[in-house]
């Protein structure tokens, strides 16, 4: 169970580089203060992800999905707001909540010189599991994800799908109660996407452990077919949430894509106009 309350995060970006004058060169060398601008990546996101449910974070590129997920994972310090995982507050840079969390990050981040098995084992051992248990769990995950032939190959030459499977197995090796997946279907073909969807549904079911799963994506069909609860994020805030049917009703549309565009962009613009 993950609860996010009114999350805010600002990033400091450096002004555009130029070498037009002496001052610019001094800035580049760090002798003078650089011109900075702040970007509000996340500007008030709140939602609740229940156990035994798949919650989808839906938004356009740059809406703030990944930043939100990184803060939930404890990798990023939020400027303000609260995150609770199973009742424990997440603090960035500490690992109190991490043993109950499995995160598949956008970059996957496998070790190319290690085999898939070694990649999975490493994380299992870091989670403090016994080597025998790690081995048993690896075999089990490999069977579920149909990746046995990959296990003893080095991750160097893996395809997108193979990388995703290995990274997912690695993230789930310690059987976490909460699972966070950042764009899991990126670069996957139809067959692999369907297989992943099946696997996630199984993890949600009581037999699979009734996990709390958060998936971020920008693909409408994914959300439509997979998610129990959808949180639409635009410009760093959540503009709407509910089940797919509820959102369709809210937007008064039959097509989910139309509903998304209406909810994410048109409402946001009208809201801004109203504010102005």
């Amino acid at each position, binding site marked *: 169970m993950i609860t996010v309350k009114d999350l805010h995060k600002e990033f400091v970006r450096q002004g555009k580089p130029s070498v037009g004058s002496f001052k610019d060169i001094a800035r580049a060398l760090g002798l003078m203060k650089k011109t900075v601008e702040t970007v509000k990546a996340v500007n008030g996101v709140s939602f609740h992800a229940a156990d035994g449910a798949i919650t989808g974070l839906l938004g356009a590129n740059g809406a703030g999905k990944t930043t939100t997920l990184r803060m939930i994972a404890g*990798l*990023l310090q939020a400027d303000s707001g609260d995150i609770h995982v199973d009742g424990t507050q997440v603090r960035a840079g500490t*690992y109190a909540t991490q043993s109950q969390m499995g995160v598949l990050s956008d*970059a996957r*981040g496998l070790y190319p010189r*290690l085999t898939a098995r*070694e990649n999975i084992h490493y994380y299992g051992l*870091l*989670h403090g599991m016994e080597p025998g248990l790690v081995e048993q769990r690896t075999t089990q995950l490999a069977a579920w994800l149909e990746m046995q032939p990959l296990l003893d190959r080095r991750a160097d030459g893996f395809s997108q799908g193979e990388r995703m499977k290995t990274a997912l197995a690695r*993230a789930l090796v310690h059987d976490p109660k909460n699972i966070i997946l950042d764009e899991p279907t990126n670069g996957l073909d139809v067959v692999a996407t369907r297989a992943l969807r099946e696997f996630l549904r199984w993890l949600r079911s009581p037999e699979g452990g009734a996990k709390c799963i958060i998936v971020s994506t920008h693909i409408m069909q994914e959300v439509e077919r997979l998610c129990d609860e959808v949180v639409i994020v635009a410009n760093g805030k959540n503009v709407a949430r509910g089940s797919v049917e509820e959102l369709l009703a809210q937007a008064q549309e039959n097509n989910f894509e139309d509903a998304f565009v209406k909810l994410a962009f048109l409402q946001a613009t009208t809201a801004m106009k109203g504010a102005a």
Partner: protein
Amino acid sequence: MRATISILRKELKDALRDRRTLMTALFSSLLGVPLMLLVFSTVLSQVESQEDKRTVYAVGMQFAPELENFILRQGYQIRQAPEDYAAKSRSKELDQPVLLVPSDFQKKLHRGEKLTVELAYDTSNRQAEFGMRPLKRLLEAYAQETMMMDLTMRGISGELLQRIDIKERYLQKADERKTSLTEMLPMMVLMAIVVGGMYAAIDTTAGERERGSLEPLMMNPVSGWQLASGKWGAVAIVGMGVVILTIFSFFPTQWLIRNETLKAEFQFGWKDAVGFLMVLLPLAASIAALQIAVALDCKSYKEAQVRNQIVTMFIPFVSLIPIVFPGREPAWFQWVPVLAQNQMMNQVLKGESLHVLPVAAALLVCVAITAVSLAYISRKMRQVVMH
């Protein structure tokens, strides 16, 4: 502790499978010193072979029969230099200088006038340059002989010209060995240590970040201290491996040295190897920690490489500090890392035994560097991904 060992084992496995890390470690440790000594021994042999070639290439020797007679008497052979000796010297076909005798040699000699002979060689021709010294010595001996004869003819003893004889006496310890060419050796060893472990240090921090595997790693319940000590352990093992390989590369190198002079100078035994290990292993471990700290907050492999190379550049400079302080070594030398090791290695090479105090001081400095670096790494490790 278990997590630390898991991290160490994984990093070591990763490093040993990385061609770049492995190649640098092996090349810097196994090739540097043998190659340097091989080059030195070849150069030395060339110099010596020129000394005992005992041939003189000359132009116009027919103008100086007395000189010819002298040279032959010294057991040298005289060869007519080829017409195009200048071109041949330039193309290194002719590996000796050429003696040019002027046509009025005999006439001037008899009249007692000042004479000039020329020695021609191309400055880019090293072999010919090495041949200059023996040839000059030969001609000076001739000049001496003619002078003595002239003086004797005039009834003056030649002894008068050399009333005071100068003799050199070396104030050397009994067991001290002569080292001149091997003075560069400590610096080569220090460079090998710094370069050898560098890529392992970069790969485990900036490399991991560039590949995107550092952020998922932070998702594991391990502390900054566990990460720092595990990663440092792996890099330190690579660094210390480089030290051991470097030192043991000295032994086969000794057999490779063909030159007798250098062989006599460079005597490296088991006792010396132990001394080197005692001095260098702590240094390698502390340099590993320092290199990780330097590379830690770099966003890319390349950035970390540049930063580490700047650190590496200081090593030769530090080894040069003694030049600024000729004579007695100031006491603070033994507290400066790298410099202390440099001095101690020189001691070992000279055949002196190491003292406990400087070794302990150097060890203390290395421990301090390691502790400070590790403290910094463990504090910063989990924060670098938070940007």
